[in-house]
């Protein structure tokens, strides 16, 4: 279960990227940024500079956000909470994202949680 929705720190109403799409298990390998919308759907955009605000667009809130690296079809090498735009802190919600990926048919190799205060090293959440 996700925590409360969060508005982007960048409140500029950036238009939604034309590359933004719902994540599917057949997505091509590569690095993506993601945001979970209020309907608990994971949307992705190929990685790029400051693209988190364009995943949902128009400064819409998200339930969670970060990066997803797809190593091969159906294999997530890493999912994390790295997003300067949203800066989510919840480990529980990150595990929700990982669980959604598994339910979609992905194999998830690592779930990395980056502490929001930057004072400790990242944690690899051990996912059953």
């Amino acid at each position, binding site marked *: 279960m996700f*925590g*409360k929705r*969060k508005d982007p720190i960048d409140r500029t109403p950036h238009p939604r990227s034309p590359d933004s799409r719902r994540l599917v298990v057949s997505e091509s390998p590569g*690095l993506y940024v993601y945001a979970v919308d209020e309907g608990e759907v994971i949307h992705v955009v190929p*990685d*790029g*500079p*400051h693209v*988190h605000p364009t995943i949902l667009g128009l400064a819409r809130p998200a339930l969670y956000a970060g*990066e997803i*690296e797809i190593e091969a079809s159906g294999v997530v090498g*890493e999912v*994390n909470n*790295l*997003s*300067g*735009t949203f*800066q*989510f*802190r*919840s*480990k*529980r*919600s990150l*595990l929700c994202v990982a669980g959604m990926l598994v339910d979609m048919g992905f194999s998830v190799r*690592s779930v*990395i*949680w*980056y*502490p*929001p*205060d*930057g*004072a*400790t*090293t*990242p*944690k*690899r*959440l*051990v*996912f*059953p």
Partner: protein
Amino acid sequence: MRKIIVVLEDNAERIAAMKLRLEDRMPMYDCFFSDDPGEIVEVLTRRKGDVLAVSLDHDLFDRADGSTEITGMDVAEFLSRTEPEFPVLIHSSNAIDADRMQRLLAKNRWSVTRVTPFNDTSWIGEDWYPALRRAIGKSAMPELVPNAEAIAD
């Protein structure tokens, strides 16, 4: 104290692109950029225990003094005399000297990742940042799921 990412780089455009990416994704960490190996060693010494990762260029020809003698090898030699504590990236177009740096560090058990610059600064988003994040992720400490506390938002 916040963890720190340390980068030896002399090119202003590269530095701007690296800063942009780090500020966008890892704003919670301190970042230190310098074209001076001496300054890098000073920070690595003063912030020992706080260093999350280091990224080293070799050639530093854009330095104000135009020196060809002062290079990233100076930092690699310093690191080779210390115990490995964090991942090191080598981002240099000088393949021969980057190989030398990598061999020296690997011989002393440092975890080293090579990134080869290409196409102006586009490699920074395409290769350097993902390699840096992967290297940091590899050093992440495991935490069992039942212990994952719920933090608001």
